[in-house]
């Protein structure tokens, strides 16, 4: 493990993790809202937002799937040192991280069970940008309607149809974060 893997973590863990958690909570509670994250400098190709999110949400008890786009030694070492998360195959993952095409197909991930819908995977999808909304979204946490930059529409509409089971998504680009829980309806803009 190179010294590069050992740096770039939080410098003030409890404060930075609490702020990032609050921001992630806000994004998940208000789908479509774009928030900024800071505090980590992860190795490429991890974005700052994805790096901060991983430091905040992942630990030794949350198995993580690294999609091929992000499965590099530098990323593995960095996540191992700062979180200790075990790397697993999609079916066993609590969290998955990668760009959209390398996370597909989605039916490899756990959507939870009727008794424990919370045992579904949360996907962290790295996008080029969150700036231009491509889909209309509505549902809990959205006053009437909102927009969100999504890589496609059909997959998220299908995921919503599984509710109360289904996957939850974070989208990251640079230091920006947005979220799409399974409870949100998705339509083409």
């Amino acid at each position: 493990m190179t010294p590069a893997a050992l740096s770039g973590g939080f410098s003030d863990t409890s404060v930075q993790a609490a702020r990032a958690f609050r921001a992630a909570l806000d994004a998940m509670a208000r789908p479509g809202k774009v928030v900024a994250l800071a505090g980590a400098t992860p190795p490429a190709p991890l974005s700052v937002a994805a790096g901060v999110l991983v430091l905040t949400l992942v630990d030794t008890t949350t198995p993580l799937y690294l999609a091929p786009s992000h499965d590099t030694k530098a990323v593995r070492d960095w996540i191992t040192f700062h979180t200790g998360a075990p790397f697993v195959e999609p079916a066993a993952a609590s969290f998955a991280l990668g760009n959209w095409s390398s996370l597909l197909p989605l039916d490899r991930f756990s959507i939870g069970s009727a008794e424990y819908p919370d045992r579904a995977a949360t996907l962290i999808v790295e996008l080029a940008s969150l700036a231009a909304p491509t889909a209309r979204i509505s549902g809990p946490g959205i006053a009437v309607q909102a927009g969100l930059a999504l890589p496609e529409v059909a997959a998220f509409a299908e995921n919503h149809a599984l509710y109360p089971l289904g996957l939850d998504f974070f989208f990251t680009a640079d230091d920006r974060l947005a979220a799409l829980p399974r409870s949100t309806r998705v339509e083409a803009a």
Partner: protein
Amino acid sequence: MQRSHDPAAGAPTERQAWMGLLARAPSARLAALMPADLPQARLLRGPEVGAVMVRGRIGGTGAPFNLGEMTVTRCTLQLASGEVGHAHVQGRGLAHAQHAALVDALLQGPRAEAIRSAVLAPLAAEEAAQRLARADRAAATKVEFFTLVRGEDQ
């Protein structure tokens, strides 16, 4: 007897041995043995307090189960000369973890021999003496039970 070290790895490596010794050392004793001229070190993680879930095995040798947690403090730092020191030590001793990480880093550099004799040697000797004293104390309570033959058995 099954040892928890990776059997392929055989006996613990030298670094495993000194990291264990530093972790088990009384924190005040380690502090007293720290060399005066300590180099600058950059903290990479911690020192921070957390918990480790201690596991046992069913029947002593079977499948693992969770016994309960213990407090642990960890620290990772880097010397200006590049060596990275790690420590995970029982309890909530921030200074203990930082001292142990510093010594771990120094033992990987040019001062290793001096640190070995100034810090590791006394800690190892004191630990061995303390363990032996305890074992001796226990040996003094070793007992022989006799079963008595009763009249009706004759």
